[in-house]
């Protein structure tokens, strides 16, 4: 299974295996990674699964969905490399993906 690395704002890193087909958000929730709230459950209706994706990965992951940037406008401290982790599909191509979590979600 592809490995996804979640790095908390304090630097603490969690490396977990996430089944193909799930989203990066689901991988976090199922493995109890702190810092991903996912209030709306993956419907792109909130901005509480917000992550930062480093440049080298940004172009490899699923492209932004329509309307995703509108939701990111409502996230806590959005940056250029912000994504909603519920919109990033896990696949073998992104094995080893590192996502950085913001200081908080709400």
């Amino acid at each position: 299974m592809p490995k996804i690395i979640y790095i908390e704002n304090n630097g603490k890193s969690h490396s977990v295996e996430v089944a193909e087909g799930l989203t990066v958000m689901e991988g976090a929730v199922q493995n109890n990674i702190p810092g991903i709230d996912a209030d709306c459950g993956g419907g792109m209706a909130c901005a509480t699964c917000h992550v930062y994706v480093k440049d080298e990965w940004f172009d490899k992951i699923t492209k932004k969905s329509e309307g995703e940037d509108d939701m990111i406008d409502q996230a806590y401290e959005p940056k250029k490399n912000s994504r909603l982790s519920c919109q990033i599909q896990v696949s073998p191509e992104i094995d080893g993906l590192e996502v950085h979590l913001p200081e908080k979600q709400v």
Partner: protein
Amino acid sequence: MIKTDALIVGAGPTGLFTAHQLKLIGLGCEIVDNLDKIGGQCIELYPDKPIYDIPAIPECTGEELTQNLLDQLKPFNIKFHLSERVDELKQVNNKWKVKTNKGTEFETPNIIIAGGVGSFEPRKFSPKECEKFENKTILYSIKDKKIFHGKTVSIFGGGDSALDWALELSKNSKVNLIHRRDEFKAAQATVDKVKELSNAGKINLITNSQLKTVNGNGELEEIEIENDNKETKKLKSDYALGFFGLIMQLGPIANWGLNLNKKTIEVDTEKFETNQKGIYAVGDICNYPGKLKLILSGFHEGALAARACFKLARPNEKYRFEFTTSSKTIKNRLGVKSD
């Protein structure tokens, strides 16, 4: 002091159907919601998005679902207390006393929390320095636009609220409109108008920038923004307005002594009662083994919680299960003729 058989917290689909179930079995209820409108997440987050998994309704939008539930409630007179958030909870003589942030007080044996993922609150600016100006010169909603006359106002955000207010306030104030990217999520006509006023020098439009910090002695005097290239810029400003949408927080309910699991409330699956007798949680906010965050689950949970309320509201009566198809009593309550 309002006395009622059950107080429902949350006017989303689950809260509405729970009210229906309470009225059907002859109990009174009132509903409190922090939003200024009925419908909860359905109306606030996805009014236009189709929902495909409501039993017997192949497809409907959040707005249609809300309207259908309200139509279903028509036979009953239900009092809504909108734009109010439940704050204080006290137990007095086996009854619960609840007070809202507007001072409305309720006395009830039953409280049903149908709060979704909490109450909607405006998302605030992240720099900590903003706190001391909040509700004075840093605002997240506008009550009286006259206070901005002749002032310099910095508006942050890229949605309809931010753009509409930028247009409105530009008539009598100097307006800076600042957004983190150069695309806007607003009606095209509004975006066009903002660009037109920007070209004419009537609105100072700054994109790809965010608030870095604020300065001022007592009142806001200056804001500092930073663009994507980390270049900063200071702008004189009497007011800063943030329109970043709404976030959801459990709010004061978190301090009610209920067993919480992350942002959800633990309940049993017989009555959907919490660890506090007479306080129930239904819909997305409740948690039990196997919980599904589906609207249909909320309906089921509300129906059972409503029956549990009967015992505490009518301790000397026995609840009798009846079908709407055959019960004369229920048909009377619904105001329909029985055969």
